[in-house]
């Protein structure tokens, strides 16, 4: 697969994508880096001056920063836990044949394709609203005091909303993984005397491990920059209770128009994202390179497999 000729062509053909992405990353990022050491407020043009790391020290000592950091991690972690637990449960349910499966699957998947703003609005005004919302109505008809979700438990509410959006994704992937579980493996476990629970713990769950890591990777990528849901529902409040890093940077950039401060914040966010990415990609990259678990038995007798594996690994 690899004569000099093809290798040269390959380099040429991957160049546009790599160069474009490099530009897309480096140009704005270096501008941001540059802005981050300036006093630069959009509303006060002509006053730009170099102020060193002052923007950074302001951003990092901002009392909002620590809560934003914790909120970001809680949000990512919470959503991941909920979607994975819920996703496994839903996948197990959907894996059983039942009437109307197609419709149910569509319903389960739908939230993933809804724009985040729209779904957040629906949750805020139709479900969680303490006066008009469905939950309040249910509480009242049960004789309970309606709970003001977004005010009393803002972060948890946002986690719930975001988890609702991502549950389908997790479900879809886990379901697919579940269906790829070798039928013979399940039968072997059955012959070995494993009941439903044992089968789940010893066979199904380990089989899903790989799918679960993938869910974690992808969700983390997107959840680190959750924004629309917060903007629409709580505006980061009350206090800083639901402000995450992205929202904090947003507030700097588009409420205060403090380009310098926002740039510093942006760089901090980039660094944080990279720290997370570093660990994640380590974890998952290893997992992705390992042989997939569901096809672990390349027929040993087929002599082509060792040599082709040798080629692709290079």
């Amino acid at each position, binding site marked *: *697969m690899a004569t000099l000729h093809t290798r040269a*062509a390959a380099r040429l053909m*991957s160049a546009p994508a790599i160069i474009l992405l490099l530009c897309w990353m480096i140009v704005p*990022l270096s501008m941001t880096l540059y802005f981050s050491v300036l006093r630069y407020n959009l509303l006060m043009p002509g006053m730009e001056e170099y102020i060193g790391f002052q923007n950074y020290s302001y951003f990092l000592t901002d009392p909002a920063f620590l809560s934003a950091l914790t909120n970001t991690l809680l949000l990512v972690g919470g959503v991941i836990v909920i979607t994975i637990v819920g996703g496994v449960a839903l996948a197990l349910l959907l894996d059983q044949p039942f009437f109307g499966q197609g419709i149910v699957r*569509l319903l389960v998947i739908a939230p993933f394709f809804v*724009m985040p*703003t*729209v779904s957040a609005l629906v949750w805020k005004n139709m479900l969680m609203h303490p006066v008009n919302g469905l939950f309040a109505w249910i509480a009242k008809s049960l004789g309970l005091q309606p709970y003001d979700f977004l005010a009393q438990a803002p972060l948890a509410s946002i986690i719930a909303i975001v988890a609702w959006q991502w549950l389908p994704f997790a479900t879809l992937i886990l379901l697919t993984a579940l269906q790829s579980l070798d039928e013979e493996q399940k039968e072997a476990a059955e012959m070995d005397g494993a009941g439903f629970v044992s089968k789940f713990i010893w066979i199904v769950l380990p089989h899903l491990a790989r799918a679960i890591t993938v869910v974690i990777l992808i969700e983390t990528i997107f959840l680190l920059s959750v924004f629309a849901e917060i903007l629409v529902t709580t505006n980061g409040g009350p206090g800083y209770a639901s402000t995450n890093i992205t929202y904090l940077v947003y507030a700097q950039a588009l409420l205060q128009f403090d380009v310098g401060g926002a740039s510093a914040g*942006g760089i901090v966010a980039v660094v944080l994202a990279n720290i997370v990415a570093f660990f994640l990609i380590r974890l998952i990259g290893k997992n992705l390179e390992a042989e997939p678990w569901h096809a672990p038995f390349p027929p040993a007798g087929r002599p082509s497999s060792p040599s082709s594996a040798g080629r692709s690994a290079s």
Partner: protein
Amino acid sequence: MQTRSDYGRHVMNSVVIAFGSTFLGLLIAIPAAWSMAFAPTKRTKDVLMWMLSTKMLPPVGVLLPIYLMFRDFGLLDTRTGLVVVMTLINLPIIVWMLYTYFKEIPGDILEAARMDGASLAKEIVYVLTPMAIPGIASTLLLNIIMAWNEAFWTLNLTAAKAAPLTAFIASYSSPEGLFWAKLSAASTLAIAPILIIGWFSQKQLVRGLTFGAVK
């Protein structure tokens, strides 16, 4: 209401941006994915991971630089500008997904084409692309969905002419009069095509979204 009669224009913008960026993205990504899948080097995995990691950067962090560049290139509020941005932000995912699908195509077949006298371009056009059609189609669909639903850049880089549906819906994001009926109508219209596309492609999507780790 006047803006409501502009609904058609917003739909057109959404369509142009979603499809335009997806096609442009595929055009750039197919060759890249080809070389990563079939002529990998030691650094290929790293390059792929790096591409993915660009997705982790918070967009607000670079909004202003992009805004200023767009202003200077006269791309503000143009479909072209948005097509470019959507292409770039989705490019890593496109490359990844295609890479995943291409990896599943036996290299033998491309070599056979080469033995049969096909040039590189012909190899890609006549053999690789048709074979990867299901994968390419689902990549295409996912990207249309992502571009269709993208709300940050569309909102911040458009005004009137190029504003897609997301920006239009944002004008409702605070209740006002008959708000609910309108929001529901508008969002249903915005979501319906995506739901349909999503439904048809869900199986393929899983493979692509998980980079082939789950089949």
